[in-house]
């Protein structure tokens, strides 16, 4: 039973007549990138905020931040996705829930996927930010306070600039994860890269070409992300500083 390779199939017009199969893949590729980048932006902002709150002396604030992290980190991603997509629109105030359900299905899928990935990843970013701050020498905070900075200024000018440098390498792997995790969103019908891969298999009956093409697209994303994060690392490197990875 020989497999007959046929890479040309990717360039053939699709069964539905809307461009080529490669065009389908490109649509999924754009969806994966758009979703992942917007969720990453959300995760960075929320994660930085929550990670900082986890380290403040105020017990109520740090406790709240800890609860946030536990909530979003420990519920399986797929379950969170279903909650955002299926459950919350029912629980939301009627007007909001109905507006959501009447909107374009692609918008529904994208918004649910964005919130799901964004909150999930923000909890993981928060943990990295917290451990970055905690790994700074204790004396740095004292030195910042001793010179007259308020606690907020000590974070702003002294602790966070160093903590963020320390967390660039662990954040790289979170950044890569968000692209991988975005594949889960095909389960609610979002046509991102993995979903398009499955479509290609169904329509072209050339599974190897389809999966290889999709795999290469993910590899390309990984390479670009790693390269970009290396650049960031090099940009923010502090001359003479050997401290703590």
């Amino acid at each position, binding site marked *: 039973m020989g497999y007959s390779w046929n890479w040309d199939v990717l360039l053939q017009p699709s069964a539905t007549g809307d461009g080529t199969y490669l065009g389908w893949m490109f649509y999924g590729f754009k969806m994966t990138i758009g979703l992942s980048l917007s969720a990453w932006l959300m995760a960075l902002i929320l994660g930085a905020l929550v990670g900082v709150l986890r380290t403040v002396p105020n017990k109520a604030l740090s406790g709240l931040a800890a609860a946030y992290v536990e909530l979003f980190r420990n519920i399986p991603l797929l379950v969170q996705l279903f909650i955002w997509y299926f459950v919350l629109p029912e629980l939301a105030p009627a007007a909001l829930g109905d507006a959501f359900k009447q909107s374009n299905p692609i918008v529904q899928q994208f918004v649910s996927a964005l919130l799901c990935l964004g909150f999930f990843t923000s909890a993981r970013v928060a943990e990295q930010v917290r451990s970055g701050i905690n790994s700074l020498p204790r004396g740095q905070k004292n030195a910042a306070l001793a*010179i*007259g900075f308020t606690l907020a200024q000590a974070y702003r000018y002294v602790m966070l600039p*160093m903590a963020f440098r320390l967390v660039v390498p662990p954040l790289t792997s979170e950044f890569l994860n968000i692209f991988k995790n975005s594949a889960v969103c095909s389960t609610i019908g979002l046509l991102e890269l993995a979903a398009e891969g499955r479509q290609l298999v169904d329509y072209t009956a050339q599974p190897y070409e389809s999966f290889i093409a999709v795999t290469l697209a993910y590899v390309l994303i990984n390479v670009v992300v790693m390269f970009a994060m290396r650049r960031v690392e090099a940009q923010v490197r502090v001359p003479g500083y050997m401290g703590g990875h």
Partner: protein
Amino acid sequence: MITMNKVSKHYGAFQVLTDCTTHVAKGEVVVVCGPSGSGKSTLIKCVNGLEPFQSGEVTVNGISVGDPRTDLPKLRAHVGMVFQNFELFPHMTIVDNLTVAQVKVLGRDPAEAQDKGMALLDRVGLKVQALKYPGQLSGGQQQRVAIARALAMDPICMLFDEPTSALDPEMINEVLDVMSELAQEGMTMMCVTHEMGFAKRVASRVIFMDQGRIVEDDSKDAFFANPRSDRAQQFLAKILQH
């Protein structure tokens, strides 16, 4: 300038400071010494409120440190502090280390702050290093920068917590020289240090601590000539051997 009245502090059941009372007058240089774990760092950090304490009172220039209404950042801005591990801000150039708080805390004009920073660097002999980063300097140089950073805030007094004990022996003197100069200019100083040579030359008074208590608080001459407690005698005998 600095008064401490029956200051006590405990962590749970562990008593770190017990009824510490002393007074540092303007222009005085007080050396604090004592065995490891005796509470020297804790005592000196109570002066600028970096360590909270449960009872007693600390005042700096008449302002109560423990009073919750006191604006601690404002008070600290004028109380210089130098740490064992320098604690320069590693991501800033040397000159930025000297200007950031002048600008952000005191609201000085950046150009003016820069001039002041450069003048102080010149004073500690490090003007050529202004654009380097802390990690590129030796320990002795970093500590001199840390002193200059504190001076840039125009402090009314200075606190030192073992400023030379993280340094290689050949760098200790360059830091002690800067401190001696400061003392001669009349700066009020409270120094935790085991450099007894420095104490003999520069100190007005010596405080000896043991197990969280101020055991001796004497003029320098009285302390070195004839320490009253056995613990201080043993401590001196041990430290002067080296």
